[in-house]
């Protein structure tokens, strides 16, 4: 719905932006039409066009498979880190490094994806990293049993090195996929309005993954994520 209002709001388009001079406006328009000279009209037909496009639906399914583990991380990271053997407040602090590393790979991954002009290959790469991370988790069983023996000599604090590494691997595998799939969908849907609706459908449906994550992880059903991840791959190859 918010997306619908965004479509109506033309203040931020290059046509009406006040901070552009006329020359700059022309240059922006030239660049865009050079790249993607498709219809910018607002017609309700394009909404139905988007809803009937199977490729957008495929991307919606990809996105929900991706957002489910993503949300499960966001919701349960403190719990997961606690399971690794950290106490309450330190657990909160230890939730910081995975995000920092994920941030780095998110930006560099998409940067090179733009340079190379490929999205799917990069997604498959990160997907592979994520699958390795989840397989590590499943084969290791309960993390605190597996890793509690490792000590960090200098501080005397229990550092579950492998567990934390596994956490990092999973973050590196999952987070960079979000802008990649977002860019992929929006790149391939032509026409301003159809693209807007397509992005909204994709992200809106993907956010339902948050509902799945909320129920799945409570049951400590980690293999479920593997299933979700593997079920994505046929869709990648279909492109």
């Amino acid at each position: 719905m918010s997306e619908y209002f965004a479509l109506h709001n033309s203040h931020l388009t290059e046509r009406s932006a006040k901070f552009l001079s006329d020359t700059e406006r022309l240059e922006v328009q030239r660049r865009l039409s050079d790249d993607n000279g498709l219809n910018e009209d607002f017609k309700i037909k394009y909404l139905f066009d988007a809803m009937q496009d199977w490729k957008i639906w495929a991307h919606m399914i990809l996105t929900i498979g991706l957002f489910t583990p993503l949300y499960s991380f966001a919701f349960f990271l403190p719990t997961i880190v606690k399971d690794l053997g950290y106490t309450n407040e330190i657990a909160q602090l230890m939730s910081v490094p995975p995000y920092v590393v994920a941030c780095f790979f998110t930006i560099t991954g998409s940067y090179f994806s733009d340079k190379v002009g490929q999205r799917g290959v990069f997604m498959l790469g990160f997907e592979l990293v994520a699958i390795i991370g989840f397989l590590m988790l499943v084969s290791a069983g309960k993390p605190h049993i597996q890793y509690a023996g490792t000590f960090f000599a200098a501080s005397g604090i229990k550092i579950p090195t492998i567990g934390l590494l596994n956490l990092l691997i999973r973050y590196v595998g999952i987070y960079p996929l979000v802008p990649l799939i977002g860019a992929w969908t929006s790149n391939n849907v032509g026409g301003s309005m159809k693209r807007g609706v397509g992005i909204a459908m994709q992200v809106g449906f993907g956010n339902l993954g948050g509902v799945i994550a909320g129920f799945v992880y409570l049951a400590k059903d980690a293999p479920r994520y593997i299933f979700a991840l593997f079920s994505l791959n046929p869709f990648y190859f279909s492109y």
Partner: protein
Amino acid sequence: MGLVHNFSGLLACRVFLGAAEGGLFPGISYYITMWYRRHECGFRIALFFSAATIAGAFGGILAFGIAKMSGVGGKAGWVRIPHLLSAYFNKPSAGHISSLLEILVLVTNYANKMSSRGSSFWKDFSPWLLAVFHSW
């Protein structure tokens, strides 16, 4: 959310939060595609989304501090979240208060002092009043 006392209240707040916030990611992605060529979109969307990961990192740091404040003023730690918001919107008028950290410390201290000695009404509303007054 700092004012609710039960699950249904929290749920109602979250529904409105979701309705207001839901369009953000698709909306920003959409705007990016209206300004940049296709091979430029990925990096821009990644920069935008990486803010979510940075927020996650800061969330961990803030949660560390909020957990430390649990029980202060007779409230659970998470009630301090509006306090932190009020600190964020505070525009310092005094020139010597320079860093964001100093502002955070000052405002949360002030909010604590106020909420621990005031009436229950003041206790409940102080974070929001502070947010309004300090962002004036």
